């Protein structure tokens, strides 16, 4: 779908990257200044690489050595900006229809009604952008990009300036866009939970270089280990179901094959996805009941990554097949004497689970 091999340098910053991907949602992850937004601009034609090629859906849109540079308006790459960047002098309706107006009739594959309905913007059509909230603005931004019937949607940190509930709402919408309109997405994000949830492939950037590529559950933790302070960004996502709300204590008990997960809040019925940070997981060789930790998940140790640093990362395969990563000191790992294949218990503090992210 997309193949790319480019270099780009401005001042002290340089981006050198090459990859190929056919993912439905390809994510670019990394700290700010790592080069992921630059890459988004290069793909959309908002910036020119110094050398190299970009091939999109079989068409060469950039080839510096042959002087090929397809201008952005001919690439049919929709762009969703972090701050939506709506046209302030046009009402929502005109904003949404902007791209459609410039799309040749034969190429208009995306219809107005389903987009407006899916993104829930029908009641906003006669409003000015200045009167919208951040979440509404971003929904209009998504609708605007979608209605240009792009062959690729580039989203540059579309949720970074939103609060948590809004972020979840937009994530759900992006999932629906991905599933209902079948347009591939290139998602730039520094938030690993967004990528875990939305992407099927991830590129991890550090200082203008790709340091990992692969399935998000593999690539993100792998790469985060290499970045200083990255242990806080390692998150495992588990699928669970609300089993019971314990009214007496105000907690929710979630059913998971590896064990019960307690969340310190009342959640709505149905399936949920729990994000667990590697730094919030402790490991034990036996099921212990004499701690305050109520959530114990059973599994097998499948991998230990010990770096030169004081840290080690243990990957567990939980009962049911999902993977959970725990961060610990190398010292603790050695003193516990864990071996690959051992049965092991993960202790997760309920209070460390953020119910707003569920």
């Amino acid at each position: 779908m997309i193949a790319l091999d480019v270099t780009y340098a401005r001042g002290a910053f340089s981006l050198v990257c090459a990859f190929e991907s056919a993912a439905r949602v390809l994510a670019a992850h990394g700290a700010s200044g790592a080069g992921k937004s630059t890459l988004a601009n290069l793909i959309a034609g908002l910036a020119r690489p110094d050398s190299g090629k970009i091939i999109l859906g079989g068409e060469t849109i950039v080839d510096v050595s042959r002087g090929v540079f397809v201008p952005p308006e001919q690439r049919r790459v929709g762009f969703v900006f972090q701050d939506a960047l709506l046209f302030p002098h046009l009402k929502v309706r005109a904003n949404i229809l902007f791209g459609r107006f410039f799309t040749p009739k034969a190429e208009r594959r995306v219809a107005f009604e389903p987009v407006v309905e899916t993104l829930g913007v029908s009641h906003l059509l006669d409003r000015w952008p200045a009167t919208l909230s951040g979440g509404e603005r971003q929904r209009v931004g998504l609708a605007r990009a979608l209605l240009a019937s792009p062959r690729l949607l580039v989203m540059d940190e579309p949720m970074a300036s939103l609060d948590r509930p809004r972020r979840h709402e937009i994530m759900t919408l992006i999932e629906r866009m991905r599933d209902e309109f079948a347009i591939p997405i290139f998602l730039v994000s520094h938030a690993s939970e967004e990528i875990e949830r939305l992407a099927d492939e991830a590129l991890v950037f550090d200082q203008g270089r790709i340091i990992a590529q692969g399935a998000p559950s593999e690539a993100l933790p792998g790469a985060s280990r290499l970045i200083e302070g990255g242990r806080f960004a390692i998150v495992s996502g588990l699928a669970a179901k609300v089993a019971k709300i314990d009214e007496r204590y105000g907690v929710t008990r979630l059913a998971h094959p590896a064990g019960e997960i307690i969340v310190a809040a009342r959640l709505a019925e149905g399936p949920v996805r729990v994000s667990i940070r590697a730094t919030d997981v402790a490991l034990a060789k036996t099921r212990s009941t004499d701690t305050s930790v109520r959530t114990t998940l059973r599994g097998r140790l499948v991998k230990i990554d010990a770096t030169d640093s004081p840290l080690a990362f243990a990957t567990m395969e939980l009962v049911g097949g999902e993977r959970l990563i725990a961060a610990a000191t190398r010292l603790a790992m050695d003193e516990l004497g864990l071996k690959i294949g051992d049965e092991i218990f993960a202790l997760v503090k309920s209070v460390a689970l953020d119910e707003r992210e569920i």
Partner: protein
Amino acid sequence: MRDVLDLTPQDWTAIGLSVKVATIATLAALPLALLAAYALARWRFPGHGALNAVTHLPLVLPPVVTGFVLLLLFGRRGPLGAFFADYLGIVFAFRWTGAALAAAVMSFPLMIRPIRLSFESVDRRLPMAARSLGANPFWAFLVVELPLALPGVMVGVILGFAKALGEFGATITFVSNIPGETRTIPAAIYSLIQTSDGDAAAMRLAIISAAIAVIALTVSEMLQRRARYGT
């Protein structure tokens, strides 16, 4: 008060001529001012500083010098004057067209400044957003940048028009002070002041020109107020 509004046919000629000269000057200068302001605001090119300096020159040069330069360039024997006369049939020397040219040149810096500032205040990424949605650079300019810069463009047009209406030094140097042809309101006021009993008549014209200026400013305020887009 009756005296004030008791205008002579000569007064009406000067007023009509002034409005015509200032209107033509503003309309003719506007496209060039838009182009120059946009180029100065958005593009980086060799000669950027030189273009900036040249457009501001009429603001700092003595008007009589600007008029003299126009006379040399656009006079009947001047290189540009001969070209316009021979190929386009437009003669500037001692004609109202020359007065319009002088007014356009003198008002150019005043027009450019607010237009440039308003282009600079439009987020550079907005035209990029338009292009990612399929608009080519011209369309992106026309439907995004220009409408957003419109308040500044309006201010530029009004300032330019007011300046053109009051232009005196370069005009009288370039095209003299011919009744019915190049005698605009300022030139007519000047002529009246030279006569012994012209003070009242000069006052009438002065009030008229002040009134036109106030109307122009009011109109520009109203136009700007319309462009608030829900804020």
